[in-house]
Structure formats: structure tokens, C-alpha cells
């Protein structure tokens, strides 16, 4: 059935989006905020050491942006594959 192939493609694209977005999620918090924080702290952004900033502010702000991007992408994807409510 042709419809089924479309649904598979929809699901695949969804998983691709989510993997990329969660990659960024991991990078800003675990990489920049924890694992690489000591080296990033040598760079300053205003009065903030960069690793400290990512842990205290950057991660949280990025998380909000990631969800906004996800919502936009998925709403468009629903329409593209005609599976919207």
C-alpha cells in the first residue's frame, strides 16, 4: 500500500529530527556544561566564564529553543505527510 510507505518516511524523518535535536541537547549541557567546562571557562562572555555560563544559563535557554524548533518542524512534517489532526 502506497500510504504505508509514506508513513514510514514520516516516522524516519521524525527520528532524524529528534536525533539531531537531542545531539544539541547533549552537547550544550553534558559537553559544554560539564565535560568541557574547565577548558571553556578560559573563554569569557561578558563577565561569565563560558563553561559556567553554559551550565547556568546557556543550557536552559537552548532547551527552550530546541522545543520551539521541534514543534515547528513537526507541525510542518505532519502537513507534508498529511497526517495532521
Amino acid at each position, binding site marked *: 500500500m502506497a*500510504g504505508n510507505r509514506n*508513513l514510514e518516511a514520516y516516522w524516519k524523518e521524525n527520528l532524524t529530527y529528534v536525533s539531531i535535536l537531542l545531539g544539541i541537547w547533549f552537547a550544550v*549541557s553534558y559537553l559544554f556544561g560539564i565535560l568541557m567546562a574547565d577548558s571553556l571557562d578560559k573563554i569569557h562572555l561578558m563577565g561569565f566564564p563560558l563553561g559556567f555560563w553554559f*551550565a547556568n544559563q546557556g543550557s536552559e535557554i537552548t532547551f527552550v529553543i530546541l522545543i520551539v524548533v521541534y514543534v515547528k518542524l513537526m*507541525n510542518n512534517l505532519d502537513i507534508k505527510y498529511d497526517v495532521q489532526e
Partner: protein
Amino acid sequence: MNILTWTWIIVGLTFALYIGIAIWAKAKTTGDFYIAAKQINPIFNGMATGADWMSAASFISMAGLISFMGRDGAMYLMGWTGGYVLLAMLLAPYLRKYGKFTVPMFVGERYYSQTARLVALICAIFVSFTYVAGQMRGVGVVFSRFLEVDINTGVLIGMAIVFFYATLGGMKGITYTQVAQYCVLIMAYLIPAIFISIMLTGNPIPQLGFGSQLSANGMQILGVTEPGYLLDKLNGIQQELGFSAYTGRGTKTMIDVFAITFALMVGTAGLPHIIIRFFTTPTIKGARSSAGWALFFIAILYTTAPAVASFARLNLIKTLSNKEYSQAPSWFKNWEKTGLVAWKDKNGDGLMQFAKGAAFDGKINFEKDASGNFVKGPHGENVVTTPQTPLEKSTNELYIDNDIVVLANPEIAKLPNWVVALVGAGGLAAALSTAAGLLLVIASAISHDLVKSMINPDISEKGELILARIAAGGAVVIAGYFGINPPGFVAQVVAFAFGLAASSFFPVIIMGIFWKKATKEGCIAGMFSGIAFTAAYIIYFKFMNPASYNVAANWFMGISPEGIGTVGMVINFVIMYVVSKMTPEPPMAVQKMVESLRYPRTIE
């Protein structure tokens, strides 16, 4: 008007508002009661989720905790926000498509097993009760600090309010009340933060303020002569006093910080009272965006908290360290009578020394005379009867409770009395809103998962609604009992709640949605081993002789009990995968159901 009068007025007004909302939003059906009939607008749902999420601990204690932990403290900020990204992308839209009432119900249907449902039910009730006991205690503590009533009386007043609006309004009443509570708590948090930021740096946005240079006014208040960035000043003074730099690495190892952050994130995404919020939106689009709104409203407080933490830390050290008691700011003397701050002149030089380590050994107690007045020491301070830690162990002479950072904020910023009162109302809003959301999970688990689907499936709609109200009422009473008689381990149970949510619900739901071939045997084996491992680890280190067992050298890979949920989660995933591979595939009907969760539209 004095602080006490203002507090009674503001707390009274907010309580009247919550009750009014509950009467207006009375639940008429079980659908209303469990999931507000799926009628909640995503922005309101986001605010309600925010209030539900931010507990008394987030509001009162978190900034203080960060202020004493420095960069390590950011694990709470990342851990308690990052879970929403997982919720938005991996759980919320699919569970909303599922469209039923509770988390144990999803587990039971997806894994075609009443046993799985029962395990999930027990976990949900356990996690919610551990959490709610702390909230009722929080209500009592706020009452006693701001309204000068006994802690137990405070718990009773809080119980009465929650009892009224949770049993009457169900999810619908709770949600609209939480919207109001969010507004109260965020105002109470932001107003003092904005004014302190202006006072010290001239920048009205606290999130930018703590990365700014000190203003002329700020330098004068803090007694600093050289201009410079606030955080640089803070690092400098910390090191001068023998602490590690505020923005640098703290006392925890990197792997432990990593594991704790991860356990908190995954635990957030596995907490039943948060997950059910996404059952209440009208559409799947709405479920996705309401996770975004929720995180937005939460992030407003969570990005302000570290700013408050560093303002307070710098201010505390600068205005107290090496000063005479008579020169101490007035807020210090105001809060001294609550036992949240204390000083003892250990070395006899008449100055207040602030240094690494604890000044006293145990809870602060003051000496009182026969008529109950504080006995004053030679400098006018209250005399502490708690034994001091020996000088060679710590030269610190000051006890400063974490909570003081938020509680004394308005006085530090020299704001009018009504702002102090507003902070009290904010703390109550934070505790009550979280308690109500948890009580609803307990009520629905009992009336819907236990009675309706396991004991008496023939119960009528009306009977189930009455039962749900009775269950909510019963849960309030039990929670109140634990609030008045807190079990000794209340402080330890947060690790428990998150660890269990991380090692039980999260893997089971994720696999249930993303892998059609996950079987009932896999689910039960995975949940059981994840929980058993996590619980055993926490019990071993936290409850059995913690003083000698609970040290980093004994930990598995250096991971503390707070972070062990991460390992429990991995175990659950692995066991579930292996066992699912070895057992017969799920029935076609279940695989079709999982398939249908993936597409917003119902496809035949």
C-alpha cells in the same frame, strides 16, 4: 503596615482566589477529574505544569543550595529543565495520542499485562507519596516563618485548602488554580531578584546582571574599591577565605555531576504527575507546544536562581565576614530568631569569621531564659547552645541556612514589607501547587487503575467519581500526617523519587513507544531489575550506616546514590531488550496500537 499584617492579607487573598477558582471549575465527570476533559489551552497548561513542577524546594531552597555549591549547583538547573526536552520529543505527543487517563494504564495496555500495570501503579503511588510529604512539610515551614504559627498548624491549614480544591475540582480545578499559583510564585521570585540586580550592577535583568560589572552603588554597598565583574569579585573573595573559586569546579567529581544531572533529567521525564499534564491538552500539536511553554515558564525561574545565588553569596560575605556583630545588616538580626542564621565568637576576637566547614555540630539552638527570651552574648548576639565544631577543624563562626538566600532577599534589597509578604505567598503557592498535582496522581491510581480496572470493573461513572474524590481526600490526610510527623528520611527521599522514576517509568515508556517488539516479559523483567538495583543501592548507602558506608571510595564507579538512577535506567533498558528478544512477540493488536501512536491523525 508591618510584615505580619501584610503577609496575612496577601496569603488570605491568594487562598480566596484558589478557592474561588475551584468552585468555578468543579469537575462533573471522571474525564474532568482525571484529565480536565482534554480542554486545557497549551499556554495555561504550560503555566500549570510549571507550578506543578516547581516545589517548595525549588522556590525556597534551590538558590541557596547553588550559592553554596558554585558551578556544581548547576546540575540542579540543567537536571530539572533538560527533562522537558525528552518529554516534548519522546513522550508527550505519543502519550497524548494514546489519550487515556493514567501512566499505569498505558503501561498495562501497551504490555498487555495486569502485572506490569500493578508494578507501575505501586511505583506511581510510592514516588508521589515520597514527594508530597515534603510539600506538606514545606507548607508548614513557610507558615511558621512568615506567619509565626506553629509548623503543625500550618500543615493543617494547607491540608484544608488542598483538600477543598483538589477533591472538588479534580484536574480541572487544580490546573486553573496552578495557573494562578504560577503567577504568584514567579512575581514573588522575580521582584526581589530584579531589585537586587539593579542595586548591585544597575542591570534590571538578573540573568545578565550577574555577568555584569558592579555599579558605583553596588561597590559602595559591598565596600569594594576596585571596579570589576561581579563574578570575578566573587571568585576573588571566595579564594581569599579559603573556598574554591565560585565559577570553577566544586567538590564533586565530573562523573558524579554527569550521573546526577542525567538521573534528574530522565527522572523528570518519568515522573507520573508531570507526564499526565500532557494528557490534558485538546490536540497532539497542543501537547508538543505545551511542553515548550512549560519549560519556558520554568526557565524564567531557573535562570534567575543562579543570579540570585551569586548576588546573595557576594553580599553575604561582604556584609558579614570580619565585621562586628553590631555592624551586621538588619536582616541578619531579624532572621537570627528563627535559627536560620547564627554566630558564635569562637576565637574571641569580636569579629564574625566566615570560612570553610560547618561552624556548629547539628541543628541550631539558642539559650533562653525562664520567661522564654533569648539570652544575649557580650556583643548582643543570641547565645548558641549547639556544640561548636573545634577551631582546628573549622575556623568558621557563622551558620547560614541555604533558605536564607531567598527568604531574606527582599530585606537585603531594602524592599517594602508587602514584597516580603509576597515571597511568603509565593512559597505557599509553590508547595500547594505541587502537592495538589501529586495528590491527583494518587487518587487516579487508586480509583481508576486499582478499583475500576482490577477490583470492580462494573463501577458506575458516578461511583468512580465519588471514589476518586474520596481517594484524593484520603491522600491529603496521609500526606498531612507525614507532614506533621516527618519520617527521618524525608531529606533522602528526593534521590529515591527521581532514581525510581528514572529506572522504572522512563525506559518502559520509551521502549513501549519506539520499539513495537518490546514484550511484556521484557517490561516486567526490566522494570523489576532497574528498580531493585536502584533501590538496593540507595538503601545500602543512605539508610544503613551512611556515615561510614556513604563515601566516594565505596561508590560504584564514583557515582553517588543521587546519581545511581542513571545506571538503573541503563540496566532496565538492557534487560528489557535481551528478554524481549528471547520471548514471543507482542500480539498484533498491541503492535498496531503502538504503530498508531506515531501518527497524529487516526489512520485506518
